[in-house]
């Protein structure tokens, strides 16, 4: 007889009160298996050196051993809709031309002319062929060399392979990924179990309704980590505690490259035991920025209904209307909760039926003390209608607030609160006498998971 082996979990204590799995027991609709997973194997509780975020040496190790080896999200397929359209993806000091070469075919070329090394394309855009602006060396969009002016002076190149060098490329969920390592594991293996967990959310059919970017004065990991735990809600976003089960969140890790947090919404924080259902309902509609409506005006909760159920049903009705499809199969959790996945190393995607948030944190060029924070909002559109064009990226100046980007609505003020910590964490780490951070055993376990996976790459 086989024996079930129970894997030791990270941290033994959990917050008192209702757990996420308890809330799933209250669902009236069959709960899909991915929500029932509750998995956070033991990783230890050691302090982590601040060097990982503030030292040039650690940045250089990432430059040498991490970024050249990982699959990384570059853009959306919809950003380059026609053959010849391309996006310039830049990571640390590398530059790639991500090009659509067929209806469902993409290629990634090293953005460097094989003549004198100038970058071939300066901007996102469209090209019938890639002509170097310096001397005119030319390649077709499949990377085949077409020639260079004064060919008589280049007979020594005749025997050389003048095709543009390529990187590995793959797609999932409407995102285009590249990998510099030609011996990397296949994208599908790298992503697992993300595609399976998102099977109810076909992101390739969503369109990009908003895209906002800004430089933040912190290491890219400080930025990413600001969105990897709900523990900070209590002090950083206290106004949302009336409808956020912050300390009841569940944290999971799946292999090396995927982790998730599930923060129940539509229930008050365990730190706020005296909140009424009516207050929860009002505040979640007014403040969360993720519900079907952003106003509680005209919403009267029927007697006997919980805020969690009322808001989920409101979302079900309004989202169904927008997308022209029934959402009868959706659980309350999927209609309302903050279910946020991280794909190693720097991309984070929310589940959701209408309004999936995406975060990406890129090093700001070769600077380890700043990063580029991007957020996209993926939306569904009415079935049978034309897919709307993707939003143009709105690049905020470093001195602008996220709340100055109206297209992200209620998220802007929340990001501004997160922003108030990010640069301050970088500054405080540099000033630290302790020289290390101490993570919460469970609530901050995804951060430990991120760093343990980084170590696997750096030590490989």
């Amino acid at each position, binding site marked *: 007889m086989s024996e079930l082996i129970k894997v030791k979990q990270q941290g033994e204590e959990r917050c008192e009160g209702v757990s996420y799995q308890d809330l799933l027991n209250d669902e009236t609709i069959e709960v899909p298996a991915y929500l029932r997973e509750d998995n956070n194997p033991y990783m230890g509780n050691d302090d982590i050196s601040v060097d990982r975020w503030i030292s040039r040496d650690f940045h250089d190790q990432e430059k040498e051993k991490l970024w050249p080896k990982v699959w990384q999200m570059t853009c959306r397929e919809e950003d380059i809709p026609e053959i010849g359209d391309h996006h310039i993806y830049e990571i640390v000091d590398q530059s790639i031309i991500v090009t659509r070469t067929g209806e469902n075919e993409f290629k990634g070329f090293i953005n460097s002319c094989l003549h004198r090394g100038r970058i071939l*394309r*300066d*901007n996102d*855009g*469209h*090209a019938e062929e890639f*002509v170097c*602006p310096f001397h005119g060396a030319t390649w077709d969009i499949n990377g085949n060399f077409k020639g260079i002016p004064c060919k008589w002076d280049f007979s020594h190149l005749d025997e050389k392979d003048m095709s543009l060098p390529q990187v590995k490329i793959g797609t999932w969920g409407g995102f285009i990924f590249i990998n510099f390592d030609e011996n990397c594991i296949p994208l599908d293996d790298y992503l697992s179990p993300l595609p399976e967990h998102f099977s109810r959310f076909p992101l390739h059919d969503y369109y990009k309704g908003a895209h906002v970017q800004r430089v933040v004065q912190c290491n890219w990991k400080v930025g990413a980590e600001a969105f990897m735990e709900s523990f900070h809600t209590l002090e950083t976003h206290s106004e949302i505690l009336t409808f956020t089960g912050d300390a009841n969140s569940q944290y999971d890790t799946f292999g090396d490259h995927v982790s998730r947090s599930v923060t129940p919404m539509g229930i008050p924080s365990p730190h706020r035991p005296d909140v009424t259902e009516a207050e929860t309902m009002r505040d979640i509609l007014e403040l969360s920025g993720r519900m079907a409506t952003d106003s509680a005006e005209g919403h009267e909760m029927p007697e006997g209904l919980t805020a969690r159920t009322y808001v989920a049903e409101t979302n079900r009705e309004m989202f169904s209307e927008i997308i022209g499809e029934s959402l009868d199969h959706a659980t309350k959790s999927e209609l309302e909760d903050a279910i946020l996945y991280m794909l190693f190393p720097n991309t984070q995607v929310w589940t959701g039926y209408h309004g999936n948030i995406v975060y990406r944190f890129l090093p700001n060029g070769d600077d380890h003390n700043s990063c580029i924070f991007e957020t996209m909002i993926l939306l569904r559109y009415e079935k049978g209608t034309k897919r709307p*064009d993707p939003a*143009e990226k709105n690049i905020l100046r470093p001195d602008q607030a996220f709340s100055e980007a109206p297209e992200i609505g209620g998220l802007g003020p929340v990001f501004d609160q997160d922003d108030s910590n990010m640069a301050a964490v970088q500054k405080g780490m540099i000033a630290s006498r302790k020289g290390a951070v101490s993570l919460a055993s469970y609530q901050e376990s995804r951060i430990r998971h991120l760093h343990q996976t980084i170590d696997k790459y750096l030590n490989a």
Partner: protein
Amino acid sequence: MTTTADTLIPAIDITDNQTLAVTLEGKNILICKANGDYYAVDNQCTHQRAELSGGRIRNCYLACPLHGVRFDLRTGMPKGELTRVPLKTYPVSVAEDGNLHLELD
């Protein structure tokens, strides 16, 4: 002094993301339509003086066919490093007769 030019170009003849090169008052002008609005700019890239006609328009940006410099049709401002010189823009309106009306200075 502002010179106005009443063209004989019916506004409806230009569709979204289309360009039309015209000569008005001796100037080579490119009329464009993006997101339902009309724009007019000099038909000459500020990078290498290439003609911009036929350049792709997406999201109110016109791309030069030669090296891909993108200009914001609303302001003429370029994106990227190839040029920092903005494109000259001209106010366009649709006259009562349905033809395009430009203001050239």
